[in-house]
């Protein structure tokens, strides 16, 4: 049985299916004394197969936006389309791997939670670890891995349940420039394979490698535009015929 949707390398995924649709989203944190209006009216549509980079200064509301998309939190006001039925894979800045168990078992975890059978788990985890280039590190514990490797394990884990969208909050924030670039490369590869990705980053250079940049400032979307990467991808598709 096919574990992940197999697409031929370089194939351009269709972008018509809507994965995320937010309309007039507001989020107010009520800490008792003060009310922080983290999001003040967000409209955002992300289609299947898109690679969106979310940028913006610290405190602008990026993580809040991400939590709402991933259903880890609920908006104070506004519409969030078919959020519940959507499968989401998370990647965190601090990896959030469980230190007591091996890389393999970390990737296996969501499959266990999803009730996937043992044989299929084995196959899927092996394939994912191979995909993120860590086939030889499966039995290592997270503490025995470098930051970049840990983040790869986390990405494999996020992909395990074959999610509709992968959400990554500053996935390169804890990594040096070169490992950060590698992780971004992995995301590009996933994008080429048809994955939908939303990645928060501070690094504009990395953001430009995504297909679309959404800039958040003070809880509002200031800018939302495609990058040249999409064109590159289109050219790739065109030349592929």
């Amino acid at each position, binding site marked *: 049985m096919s574990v992940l949707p197999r697409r031929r390398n370089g194939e351009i995924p269709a972008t018509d299916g809507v994965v995320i649709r937010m309309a007039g989203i507001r989020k107010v944190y009520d800490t008792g004394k003060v009310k922080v209006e983290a999001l003040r009216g967000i409209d955002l549509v992300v289609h299947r197969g898109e690679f969106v980079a979310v940028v913006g200064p610290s405190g602008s509301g990026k*993580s809040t936006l991400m*939590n709402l998309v*991933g259903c*880890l*939190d609920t908006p104070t006001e506004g519409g969030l389309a078919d959020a519940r039925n959507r499968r989401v894979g*998370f990647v*965190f*800045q*601090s990896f*959030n791997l*469980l230190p*007591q*168990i091996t890389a393999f*078992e970390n990737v296996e*975890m*969501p499959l*266990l*939670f*999803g009730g996937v059978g043992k044989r299929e788990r084995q196959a899927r985890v092996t394939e994912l670890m191979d995909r993120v280039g860590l086939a030889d590190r499966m039995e290592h514990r997270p503490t025995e891995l470098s930051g970049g490797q840990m983040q790869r394990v986390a990405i494999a*884990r996020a992909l395990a*349940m074959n999610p509709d969208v992968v959400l990554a*909050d*500053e996935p390169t*924030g804890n990594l040096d420039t070169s490992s950060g670039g590698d992780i971004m490369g992995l995301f590009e590869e996933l994008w080429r394979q048809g994955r939908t990705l939303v990645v928060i980053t501070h690094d504009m250079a990395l953001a430009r490698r995504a297909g679309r940049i959404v800039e958040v400032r003070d809880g509002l979307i200031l800018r939302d535009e495609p990058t040249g990467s999409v064109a590159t991808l289109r050219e790739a598709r065109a030349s592929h015929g």
Partner: protein
Amino acid sequence: MRAGLVFQLFLASSRVQKKRAVLTIASIAWGSVALLLLLAFGEGLKQQLSRGSAGMGTNLAVLWMGETSRPWQGLPAGRAIRPRVDDVNLLRERIPGLVGIVAEMRNWRTAFTYGAKTVNGRLTGSSPEYGELRNFYAQPGGRFIDALDEASKRRVVFLGNERAKEIFGDEDPVGKTLLINQTPFTVVGVMKRKIQMGTYGGPDAENAVIPLSTYVAMFGSDRVGNIVLKPERPGEMPRVLADVRRIMGAKYGFDPADEKVFPTWDTVETGSVMRNILLGIQVFLGVIGALTLMIGGVGVANIMYATVKERTREIGVKMALGARPSWIVAPLVLEGLLYTVVGGAIGLVLGMILIVLIGLIPTAGNDALEFLGKPTVSPLIGVATAAILGLVGLLAAYFPARRAASVDPAQTLRYE
């Protein structure tokens, strides 16, 4: 969820808190020891007491001879009613469903002389049935008063073991002759030592019993001192007592409903009161034990809260990865239960060893130890201890686990 993974997670986290885990298990063990010992002491006390209350005989009623408290058919109140020995024989004939009914005559200052030694004390005259009703059992080599003694007014005496010791010292009294109020009597038996809680007039160990017929001849009066009776079924006691008043009332002319005529000690009634008191004592001891165990439970809850706090991030991650709350809660509850079960098992084993050791301490001869020093385990105690342990474990694990289930992943996953 894969059991191995759960176990691995458990081991990994409990390694971090090994010291805390050991202390917690120790406190649960201590609580279990306390609970088990208290319950066992309570049970031992109860069994000793019921054995003790059985010492006087069970399901008896003792009737004293009193006065009428109300006028009856022209007769005034305040008349003393003094039945005779024959009246007791009448009652024996007329009342069905009796194990026995006997007259008991007593003299409080009787001189017992053996050789050069004279002691003063109680003398009782009663029928052979008296021995059965009131649990006078003879030591080997002797016997109680029998029917022949009674029929032929023999001068024989059955001595309480303390009285025998007082008069004869280390000598074997059976077959010896002593003087009772200057009249020679032969000792036919000495009472086997018994634990006696209830007494009226003094313990049986200090008594001396002679045949009723002999007593009447000796003291020249056949007015009954008191009546001792026992129905075949304890529940019939009220009916039997009513029969006594009805038959005697008809003969002596008093209101059969007048309970003051024969002031009565109904041991069926007082026995049930005592059983309730004993149950109360046991519950009280159990509550103290349970509270001690509860302290251990607080320890478990504490360690579980700490665990949940330490693993908040882990829990948040698992939730973000799609874990259902029960998958978060179940391993934590299991962990809490495990501490309780391990601690409880250690405690119960230690407790049993202690109970056996305490049971080995000789207590014969020391009254206080005889009542307190015999902790006893019953199946009910086992069930109660296990149930309390389980409850403590569940409670101690449930609340922390509930906190774990309410972890907000968005909060915990914020980058620190």
